């Protein structure tokens, strides 16, 4: 094994060791040792990822096997690594954000009894996520895919005494399983047609199979690639929370905030985006699948952003914003702008982590209060949190020169340049989404950090509204200490990660020239000539500064600004206005507050329906028909038959004698007549 190969192994194994030690021996080594051992693991992992990244930039790619998992027939299934530009990028993002979250957790979870367990989980998550992105085959991808789902499940339900948390984690797991259902069928089709699950072999052979068709319903002929890609994408819809499998992500906010940042914003939910980019040699062969991807992304991007505008829970605002941003990434994939999608994934990881961790900082400062109606005017109490979150919001809204501007603008332009008919649907939604994005990002900033402080004012109408809602929901009206404990800035373990993540939230976009247009991804992303979106943009790209000057002359910039301005007007200039608007636009607000009714429908139709059918089959099929009619019925039949023929064995001699005589008579009659 070469030094680099050892290093590849070290990247995922360092966090795994940390997870095992903190998880199995956390009770023995104590809290400090648990966070040290996992953080040291993460530091090693991050440094090693950095070295690998540097090595890949020097042009050293790697594709090799670690061990053979299973051989069956002619199929070899292996665990192995593919280290290329795409992998290296993901490795750096995952390990860096994870390290920041580890440090942040020291502050955020300081008082939690499950401290060691938490560190074990987030290190285990990092291991799983790294195995996912470093995989060189579909099987290991699926391994990592499900493993991150498991850790996500464990972490959403981390506070396992909260009914909402354990509802949310079950929901997240099952909804993800719906996606994985499609994903696994896609993998099975790949194995069937290609005879292997190895990326390199599958991608090399894909053009030869592009003409194949498959008949799923008798009489309908589908392109094989379309079926495979859509099935694989169903997996991505689950993991990356795309409509209509998005329903689990907002509820996942029940988990502790560090994991909302790490798992449900920066890394795990982007696994679907990564997967489609990785599969670009397959998706490129099906315009139908790409159009499907684009439409789903557009729906998610726009309609989820709308929900964010009415949420009060600070984490839910960020969660819906994440859904919307994931929609942008998905749209980009549909436009064959894979590099733009990964670039948005890259910038988003930083600014969304800032927004979540900043929200967490606010939440601990207010003693676990998440409702923005009870915030307001926090900027002067928490300057570091405020400034970093402001940077995050600017990036999220896509304003130059912050990171999000470059990636989001490229996606919008790529949609414009896409030759697919679906872009006529996606492009307007993407542009309109910018307006909404500007609004909800700055609504959060202005509502929570500006204006009059409401956390110390129990008579403010907003605060009364919260109290009334909670009383209606049967919760006690709020913490008694709200009135006298003024919030203060969080400790350095919390603010340091914020600052370290805010820096790339500003400047990560400046590498766009190389990253998106400069052939940075090399052979790891494959785009055919018929999908020229990125190639078109690359011709028009003349550098970062011209892009900014061009950007401020286009519609999206002014829309984002308009959104931010509206938020400023509504929440700073006329703070009494939102309540009036809510009343006026009753129906629209209700629809948005109800999240378009998906949760209710799923609960009633799918969860309830499955239980009703299950009950029907059990009571009707198993109990009534099989057991009652056939099993016990045949026993009863035997019993009844026995009672009948029992009369022939009465035990009385004269019965037998009489029967014998009748018999002899009958015999004689038969013989002689």
């Amino acid at each position, binding site marked *: 094994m070469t030094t680099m190969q050892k290093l590849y192994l070290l990247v995922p194994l360092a966090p795994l060791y940390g997870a095992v030690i903190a998880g199995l021996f956390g009770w023995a080594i104590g809290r400090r040792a648990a966070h040290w051992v996992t953080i040291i693991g993460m530091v090693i992992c991050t440094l090693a990822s950095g070295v690998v990244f540097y090595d890949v930039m020097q042009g050293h790619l790697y594709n090799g096997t670690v*061990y*053979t*998992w*299973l*051989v*069956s*027939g002619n*199929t070899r299934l292996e665990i192995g690594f593919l280290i290329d530009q795409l992998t290296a990028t993901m490795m750096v993002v995952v390990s860096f954000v994870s390290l920041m979250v580890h440090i942040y957790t020291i502050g955020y979870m300081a008082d939690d009894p499950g401290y060691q367990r938490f560190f074990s989980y987030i290190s285990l998550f990092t291991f799983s996520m790294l195995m996912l992105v470093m995989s060189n085959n579909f099987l290991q991808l*699926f*391994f990592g895919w*499900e*493993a991150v789902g*498991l850790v996500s*499940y*464990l972490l959403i*339900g981390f506070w*396992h*005494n909260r*009914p909402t948390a*354990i509802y949310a*984690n*079950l929901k997240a*797991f*099952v909804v993800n*399983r*719906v996606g*994985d*259902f499609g994903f*696994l*069928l896609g993998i*099975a*089709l790949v*194995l*069937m047609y290609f005879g292997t699950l190895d990326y390199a072999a599958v991608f090399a052979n894909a053009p030869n199979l592009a003409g194949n068709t*498959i008949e*799923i319903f008798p009489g309908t002929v589908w392109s094989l690639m379309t079926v495979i890609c859509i099935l694989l994408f169903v997996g991505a819809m689950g993991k990356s929370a795309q409509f209509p499998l998005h329903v689990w992500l907002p509820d996942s906010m029940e988990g502790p905030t560090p994991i909302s940042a790490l798992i449900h914003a920066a890394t795990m939910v982007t696994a679907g985006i990564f997967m489609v980019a990785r599969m670009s040699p397959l998706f490129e062969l099906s315009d139908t699948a790409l159009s499907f991807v684009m439409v789903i992304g557009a729906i998610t991007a726009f309609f989820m952003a709308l929900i964010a505008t009415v949420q009060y829970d600070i984490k839910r605002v960020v969660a819906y914003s994440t859904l919307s941003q994931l929609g942008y990434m998905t749209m980009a994939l549909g436009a064959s702008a894979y590099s733009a999608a990964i670039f948005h994934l890259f910038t988003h990881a930083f600014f969304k982590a800032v927004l979540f961790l900043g929200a967490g900082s606010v939440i601990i400062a207010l003693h676990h209060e998440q409702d923005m109606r009870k915030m307001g005017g926090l900027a002067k109490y928490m300057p570091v949190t405020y400034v970093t979150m402001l940077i995050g919001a600017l990036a999220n809204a896509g304003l130059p020169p912050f990171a999000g501007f470059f990636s989001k603008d490229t996606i919008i332009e790529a949609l414009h340049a896409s030759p697919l008919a679906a872009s006529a649907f996606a492009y307007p939604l993407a542009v309109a989404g910018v307006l909404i994005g500007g609004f909800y990002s700055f609504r959060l900033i202005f509502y929570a950090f500006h204006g009059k402080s409401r956390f110390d004012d129990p008579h403010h109408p907003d605060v009364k509204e919260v109290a009334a809602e909670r009383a209606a929901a049967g919760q006690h009206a709020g913490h008694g200490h709200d009135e006298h404990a003024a919030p203060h800035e969080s400790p350095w373990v919390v603010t340091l990660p914020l600052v370290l993540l805010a820096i790339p939230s500003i400047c990560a976009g400046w590498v766009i020239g190389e990253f998106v247009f400069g052939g940075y991804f090399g052979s790891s992303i494959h785009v055919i000539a018929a999908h020229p979106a990125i190639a078109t943009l690359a011709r028009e790209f003349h550098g970062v500064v011209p892009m900014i000057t061009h950007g401020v002359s286009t519609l999206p910039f002014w829309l984002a600004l308009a959104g931010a301005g509206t938020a400023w007007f509504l929440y700073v200039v006329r703070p009494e206005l939102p309540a009036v608007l809510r009343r006026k636009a009753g129906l629209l607000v209700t629809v948005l507050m109800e999240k378009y009714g998906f949760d209710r429908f799923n609960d009633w139709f799918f969860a309830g329906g*499955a*239980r009703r*059918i*299950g*009950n029907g*089959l*059990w009571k009707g*099929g*198993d109990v009534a028909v*099989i*057991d009652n009619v056939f*099993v016990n019925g045949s*026993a009863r039949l035997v019993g009844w038959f026995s009672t009948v023929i029992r009369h022939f064995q009465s035990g009385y001699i004269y019965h037998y004698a009489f029967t014998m005589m009748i018999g002899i008579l009958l015999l004689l009659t038969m013989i002689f007549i």
Partner: protein
Amino acid sequence: MLLGFPLLSLAIWVPIIAGVAVLFTGSDRNAHVARVIALIGSVLGFVVTLPLYFGFDPLASGFQFVELSPWIESFSVNYHLGIDGISLLLILLNSFTTLLVVIAGWQVIRERVAQYMAAFLILSGFMNGVFSALDALLFYVFFEATLIPMFIVIGVWGGPNRVYAAVKFFLYTLLGSLLSLVALIYLYNVSGGSFSLQEFYRLPLSLGAQILIFLAFMMAFAVKVPMWPVHTWLPDAHVEAPTGGSVVLAAIMLKLGGYGFLRLSLPITPDASQYLAGFVIALSLIAVVYIGLVALVQSDMKKLIAYSSISHMGFVTLGIFIFNVHGIEGAIVQMISHGFVSGALFLCVGVLYDRLHSRQIADYGGVVNKMPVFSALFMLFAMANSGLPGTSGFVGEFMVIMGAMKANFWYAFLAATTLIFGAAYTLWMYKRVIFGAVANSRVAELQDINMREFLVLALLAIAVLAMGIYPNPFVEVLHTSVNDLIAHVMQSKLPVQ
């Protein structure tokens, strides 16, 4: 060196002799002696099966460790033993499970200890007999003999409704297998007076005869698997059986059905197997989907796991009857994995039952607050039951789904619904039992598992993870046997016109 040694006879008779020895300790005054002898017997029983794995030549076709001596000469019945890769894994699983059951019953069983331990040891010997018999009558005798100890286990140490369950179990399975005896006698006549299975494999048979023989066998094996719609004995048997009984029932006894299909149905009646494959596959898929939904609404933990077992066994029969390497190897892996996982789940329910004397999900809630170590292990097994990659539960399901896709898209589609149902029913149960605030005062008094319980569950946890992370050593030994079997099935046995 190993070949000369009657290892298979040891695998059969060591536990039986140990069981008889345990019986001699008599009443419960000598309970401790009984336990110690049982432990020694089960350890020895497990140890003697290990050389089978290490001495097994995975590349050799045919049966290995063959023993042949006459038994009833006038009917040319032989004591004929031998194993291939398929039997090998099941024998190992059986002996391993018996060891765990003896440890698990160590303190829990307080009445008729000797008889309890003896029943399991003898049962273990009989099962090894089924898995290694190459003579049809010997197979049948062992196959039926297993009913007796299990009948006693359920009927004596079972729950309140144990008599109904035990009789239902006994009659259901006995009636199922009687017809297979008829088929075996028919084959004996046709073959000109032989009970040798290998002789039966070579026997040309018309399609009509094959179909009848196949259906007769299927009656026996479908009940054992159990396949829908002859599955309703299993939930009752599990609910009433003591923990050890449930473990052995799920882990080993159900495998007799799958094994029977592989050892008898497929090679003896290959044309009928192919002719009727669609029928068996349909029943299997009904089991996966229908039973998956039924499992969702169970309120009794044992019943839920029993239904989950039936659903998982649907993968076994599905895999066998799609006749490709992935399918059949997947089916066998699924049998082994199901042995670990459902055995472990029944042990977990047993741990809770020993403390609260309830199997009702509604009586629990918030157990993790009082039993964190137990909850962590239970989580692992629940995830394995949901088929999470990295656990053994994934491997078999994955292979069968891969194989099913080659046969028909919709087979794979319906089979893959287990990803959703399996997760839903298992984790929903886990949520209601383990998570949440402490539900009542009895839960508040729960004590976490002791060393003995930890040992049993930890051994299973290691097995589940080992098989999930590195399944190749388990599957390696199957290749030759499965390839030969498939080649045999593909060759028509219809008489040449």
